[in-house]
């Protein structure tokens, strides 16, 4: 039961992180490899801000959200839009975006590594204290609780927005056929920017929450999370919000089981193995739409 709470809060971090990736990949065809760096650098910026002054929990969260959104927007405008403009077809654009993302990801990573000397950094100066809430034999920290609630609320809000609002419909139409969508008056560029901003904001949020909940994170933690988020997305199905949830919970549960049963070094193999397995057995994921291009 105690493990279940831990798995649930871990899954919620995965949801917040992977939801943005899944959203951009499933709709505007951008698999952003800088997503992990954006996640890490948002927390790192908050850490820098906390060096000079003590800030409350909400200010720190706000910093993470704003920095994440801004970095994601910058990546889109300076790198991905330029690549799409120059690419001759969709396939080569996809590949250039992947490589461009890898390049962009190195930049914030090396800045953070330079200042922290690759040591973990945390929010010691924050006025917010992590406390345990006990009920019966079990406990949950306030950060874990906030993470779980935020992941649930934001996930449902995203799913609702995608399904019910006009912009959500427009965004999904881009995912199906961007040319027809633009004929129907959908402004692809504006929607792409908005989607990237939302994705970045959620990554920043996840960065702040994970740093609070673990106490400290390393500059390299973004890379690991990127592969794990990938596993979550593949597991559930690209572009499906419910899929991200299911994938995240399955991965977090599997990792918790492995962590409690073995010496811990095998944990990373779980996500890589799951990616492999799902791609083989059901490439479109559990909730994925059937898509010809995929297999």
């Amino acid at each position, binding site marked *: 039961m105690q493990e279940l709470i831990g798995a649930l809060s871990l899954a919620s971090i995965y949801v917040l992180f992977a939801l943005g990736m899944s959203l951009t990949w499933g709709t505007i065809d951008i698999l952003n490899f800088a997503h992990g760096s954006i996640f890490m650098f948002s927390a790192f910026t908050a850490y820098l801000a906390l060096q000079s002054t003590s800030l409350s929990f909400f200010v720190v969260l706000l910093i993470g959200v704003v920095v994440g959104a801004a970095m994601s927007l910058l990546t889109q405008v300076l*790198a991905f839009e330029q690549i799409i403009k*120059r*690419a001759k077809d969709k396939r080569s654009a996809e590949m250039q975006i*992947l*490589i*461009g993302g890898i*390049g962009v990801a190195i*930049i914030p990573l090396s800045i953070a590594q330079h200042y922290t000397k690759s040591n973990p950094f945390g929010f010691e100066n924050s006025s917010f204290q992590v406390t345990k809430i006990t009920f019966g034999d079990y406990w949950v920290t306030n950060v874990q609780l906030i993470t779980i609630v935020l992941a649930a609320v934001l996930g449902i809000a995203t799913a609702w927005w995608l399904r019910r609002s006009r912009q959500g419909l427009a965004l999904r139409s881009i995912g199906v056929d961007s040319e027809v969508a633009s004929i129907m008056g959908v402004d692809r560029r504006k929607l792409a920017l908005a989607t990237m901003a939302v994705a970045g904001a959620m990554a920043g949020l996840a960065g702040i929450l994970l740093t609070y909940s673990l106490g400290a994170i390393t500059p390299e933690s973004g890379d690991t999370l990127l592969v794990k988020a990938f596993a979550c997305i593949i597991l559930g199905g690209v572009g499906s919000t419910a899929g991200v949830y299911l994938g995240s919970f399955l991965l977090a549960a599997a990792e918790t089981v492995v962590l409690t049963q073995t010496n811990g070094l095998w944990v990373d193999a779980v996500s890589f193995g799951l990616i*492999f397995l799902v791609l083989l057995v059901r*490439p479109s994921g559990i909730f994925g739409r059937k898509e010809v291009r995929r297999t």
Partner: protein
Amino acid sequence: MMDFFDSNVVLVQATFIGLVLALSVQVPLRMGVFSFAGAGSFGIGAYLAGIITIKYETPGIVAVLITMVVTAVIGLLLGLVISRLAGLYLAMATVAFDLIISVLAINGGELTGGPTGLYGVLSDFGTIHLVIVTLVVLALVAASEIGRTGRRVDAVRDDPELAASVGISVRRYRLVAFVVSGALGGAAGAMNILVRSTVTPQDIGFGLIVLALTMIIVGGARSWKGAVLGAVIFTWLPELLTIVGDWQPLIYGIIVALAAIFLPRGIHGLWVDSRRALQRRRREKAAGGAAGVAGDDDDDSGSTVIEKLKESSEMEATP
């Protein structure tokens, strides 16, 4: 010359190993298979060559050949399993394959040395062997870029349906891509441990994929010349960048991002494109002069058709 060689022998070795690694990712890419399995084969190759050298004291060149056969077979099996995937899905499956190899290396216990890796692998494999193996491999890869094979490979990449319709077995070519990638990656990994005598799980992680990819993207993905350019640039660039200290990765990242945006076909592609553009301009000038002398509209249009034909045949000839 000898002084330069002696003082930079590690970098010279790294250049050749980097080249073989880059080719292991480039060959499948040239056949339209977005596979990073070469990096995983590098890991398998490094550990396998290290283990057989320690246990059986195999001569260096034999160890490399055994490793290449094993990684080629693993490549074939991997290809049989995942060749039905395409694009980014295939890419991520191979990334997962690579990372599983590094997790296996960490958890291999005494056989792989766990997180500290293998060390003290002493072998008679020297720089001269390294150079010979690399040149043989390079010659074979270069041979696959010209003539019939070269055109078939281009067809399989650019238009698989068309290739299949003219009787090229696309599936077989894709499987060959996996086999060759496995053998090349294995060779690079084996040679790496035999000349450096050590390997750790960190050496075969995500960074290796990024390195191989950046080499061929910046150098050029369509030709072995691009791989050579990339291997030279990214082995020696860190040397040149020592002045900027630990800001080195930052510059590295900026270069990769800029290359992805502005040089989608790499430095080699830029060279090919500019040479072609120059030729075209020169020919247009010559054709313009000829048309001016003839002073006839019909002649003019006739010459452009011939030119287009010439140009298209030229495009087929140069990969």
